């Protein structure tokens, strides 16, 4: 049998989970942050692509949990728990949160750093350690996580591909 290394794609304000040998990927992170939660032993990982720091910022009645740092990370943890992953075993890698443009309303300019702050706060609240991060700067990122190696690959324009 041939096992294809299929890639699961996560859109903006979206989340999903994956088991080895498949990998999981999200494209074109700017001020958004991509959070990977993974269980090193079970080789299961989840990824969420958040846009905003706090679900209290939502002004609509129907909330898309994956859009916000607080509800997104919690929601991803619940998805992994449903797959039999113990929260204690979870570790995190994060990337994104850049400042693509230097103008706008002050709130909008700072959205990248604010997203990163909120992600760290939420991970701390859930006692999930951050093993590696590639955040800030002014470049877009595409990230792909391989659960069999617990490795996050980060591609940026004009910079070398990083592995963290």
């Amino acid at each position, binding site marked *: 049998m041939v096992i294809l290394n299929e890639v699961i794609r996560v859109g*903006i304000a979206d989340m999903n989970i994956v088991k080895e040998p498949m990998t999981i990927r999200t494209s074109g992170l700017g*001020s958004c942050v991509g959070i990977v939660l993974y269980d090193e032993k079970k080789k299961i990982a989840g990824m969420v692509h958040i846009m905003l720091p706090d679900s209290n910022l939502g002004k609509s009645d129907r909330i*898309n949990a994956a859009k916000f740092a607080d509800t997104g990370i919690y929601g991803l943890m619940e998805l992994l728990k449903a797959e039999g992953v113990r929260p204690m075993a979870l570790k995190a890698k994060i990337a994104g949160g850049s400042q*693509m443009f230097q103008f706008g*309303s002050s709130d909008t300019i700072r*959205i990248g750093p604010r997203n990163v702050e909120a992600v760290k706060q939420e991970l701390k609240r859930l006692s999930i350690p951050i093993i590696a991060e590639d955040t800030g700067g002014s470049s877009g990122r595409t990230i792909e996580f391989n659960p069999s190696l617990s490795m996050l690959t980060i591609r940026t324009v004009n910079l070398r591909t990083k592995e963290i």
Partner: protein
Amino acid sequence: MNSENPISDMHLDVLKEVGNIGAAHAATSLSQLLDRKIDMYVPDVKLVSFDEMFDLAGGAETIVAGIFLRIEGDLSGSMFFVLPLKSANHFIRKLISDKTFDFASPNLPEIGISAMQELGNILSGSYLSALSDFTGLKIYPTVPSLSVDMVGAIVSFGLIEVSHHSDEVIVINTQIREEGEDEASGIEGHFFLLPDPSSYVTIFRSLGVM
């Protein structure tokens, strides 16, 4: 029109007309600037998800030269002028008469960057002044800012405001084409106008369709 889905096909048609008027003015400005015949038309006005928005611009990972500006005044929103690198190079080479200019090079000459920003300024200015004349609304664009990066990273910045309210956005998509150029070497580009949700009603009221 109901509270669940306040935007009808008729409203989208009205926005398309708004886009067509803006596009016609911008095309005239660009033709004068480059001394070439430029076509601009509005292929679609749609309510799309954020991922679909990136697809309209070529896919989240496509590297583009993207000009971004905010619109303030009676209505607010984000505006993007997005060009694949090949088209951006083509435009700027003509504009500054330098055949070697390349957005992919690490050290971009300042003159090319400012030419690109000026291009964004002229196009958005003529587009928005047409929109302002047509609707009678006061519209103030900010100074445009340039980024050469992935579409997703650039455009998501303009979706932040919308994302507070919704997971979908109305896109007035304007396509640019240089007349006479063959498909392979032709210039292509997109102008995206993304009104903030709070401005939809303002636009429709100003045009008497609500």
